[in-house]
């Protein structure tokens, strides 16, 4: 399942699961992530899954590349211990004040905004990974009809709760942050809650997200 294991610097292991980004490859990454995490191996300081890679950092005081590499090569992947995947419904409001890239997307995609939303809401999205900023989910795959490039100049501030599109992925800005994705709406939900130290992220790798369109009134009610 792992195509190649390399060192990334002197204190991390780089596991390459293949070039493509798809659900199957990503599920393998997540499966390795969960199994390694459950083993609680001494000296491992971070395990970071992404679309098709898994990076394992370790404390050079405790272990080294060859030891960790060996553990990964001999790792028995148990299916039953896998993370229980959830289907999560995320309400989005698409009032004009939230759809920062309304005009830009209509122009690039050559589709009317109503139709863009119809296509967007008709799908369920798979969470490939979380990160960049705390709890930001990277979801896919966006319909081929809605694939747009990043903004040429990223925004200095993207509002919290914004839903962004770039190429085959969409994401949710868990905090106000700089960012260059095309913003099509906003969710009133807190996707990341740092006060919930056990489960701070609402959406985790392997989960499925279903977006639901809501009105401004409904948005305001949830926000309260």
């Amino acid at each position: 399942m792992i195509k190649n294991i390399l060192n990334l610097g002197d204190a991390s292991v780089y596991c390459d699961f293949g070039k493509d980004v798809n659900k199957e490859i990503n599920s393998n990454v997540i499966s390795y992530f969960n199994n390694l995490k459950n083993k609680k191996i001494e000296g491992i300081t971070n395990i970071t899954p992404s679309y098709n890679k898994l990076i394992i950092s370790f404390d050079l005081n405790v272990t080294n590349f060859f030891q960790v590499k060996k553990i990964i090569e001999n790792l028995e992947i148990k299916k039953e211990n896998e993370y229980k995947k959830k289907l999560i419904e995320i309400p989005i409001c698409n009032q004009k004040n939230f759809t920062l890239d309304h005009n830009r997307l209509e122009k690039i995609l050559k589709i009317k905004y109503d139709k863009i939303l119809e296509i967007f809401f008709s799908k369920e999205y798979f969470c490939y990974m979380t990160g960049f900023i705390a709890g930001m989910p990277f979801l896919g795959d966006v319909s081929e009809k809605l694939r747009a490039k990043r903004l040429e100049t990223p925004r200095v501030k993207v509002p919290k709760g914004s839903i962004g599109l770039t190429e085959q992925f969409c994401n949710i800005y868990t905090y106000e942050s700089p960012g260059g994705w095309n913003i099509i709406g906003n969710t009133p939900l807190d996707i990341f809650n740092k006060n919930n130290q056990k489960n701070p992220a609402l959406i985790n790798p392997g989960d499925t997200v279903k977006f639901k369109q809501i009105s401004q009134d409904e948005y305001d009610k949830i926000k309260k």
Partner: protein
Amino acid sequence: MNMIKSKNNYFEVERAGINTTFQDDGRKNLNHIGIPVSGAMDKRNYKIANALLKKNLNSPVIEFAYQGPLLKYQGEEIFIVITGDVKFQIFRENKKQINGEPYHVYLIQNNDQIDIQSTNKSVYGYISISEDFILDKTWGSYSINTKAKIGSNNGEKLSNNQKIDIDHKKKKLTITNLNYVNSKIEYIRVLKSINFDFFSEKSKNIFFNKEFKVTKLSDRMGMRLEGQVLENVVNSNIKSEGLVKGVIQVPSDGNPIIMLSDHGTIGGYPKIANIISADFDKLVQMMPGSIIKFKQVSLEEAEKLFKFYKLETDNLINQI
């Protein structure tokens, strides 16, 4: 209970300094939800600060950058120590003024002031105290990450006129000082990274033979360098993947960025090289305007150099 006691023992922050935070060894195993490790930038100086006061080496300390804080102490006497290459003074209540020396333990009494004027040709310094700061932990660490607003002090850097409460347990201490000089380094040593071959032969040569300059766009998240542009001949965007401390990314403008303690957890720029762990402490102390030259080593050499770094650090701590 602590809160009642604490009212009697605290620092008043009369001047916060440029970027003054609490740091410890950082928070682990949270990169997968987007939380960086954080923690003290210069690990050796951080650990020595705690060692000099006979504390657990992973206790939280105050980290400052360039200009540090001006602190006024209120309460029963405590000991403090400052590490790094730092210029500071202590003003006693009786108007006596002491030119401070790093790695020396000082007794601090009610109304004394500690004025951290600046780091000398370096970036970070540390203050540890013999007693305990009263702080909140987030995910097992006191380290402040100001970008994500995580950690003690509500995830914010210190601000003027705030208080730092201290839990005074009246610890006994035999004073030991240390004579230590932070050495400079001629090269920063690196390992070739995953995307090294994305770069042209000319650029590979430039990387190992030319000088790079540390720019002002450097902080706890990363260090941006400028020099001759590195030309990517394969692909300047890769699929986003995990990042680690010390990785050198090269975006399409061709200028390298080194990821440091508060770095974003994933990124999509090609990685040309990784700084070896043994050289992190020296790297982070390089000020904007400093010249960096990279030297390639093998993984085995990097591991040996780390063992040597660790031995050196342990020896310093054992001297105390």
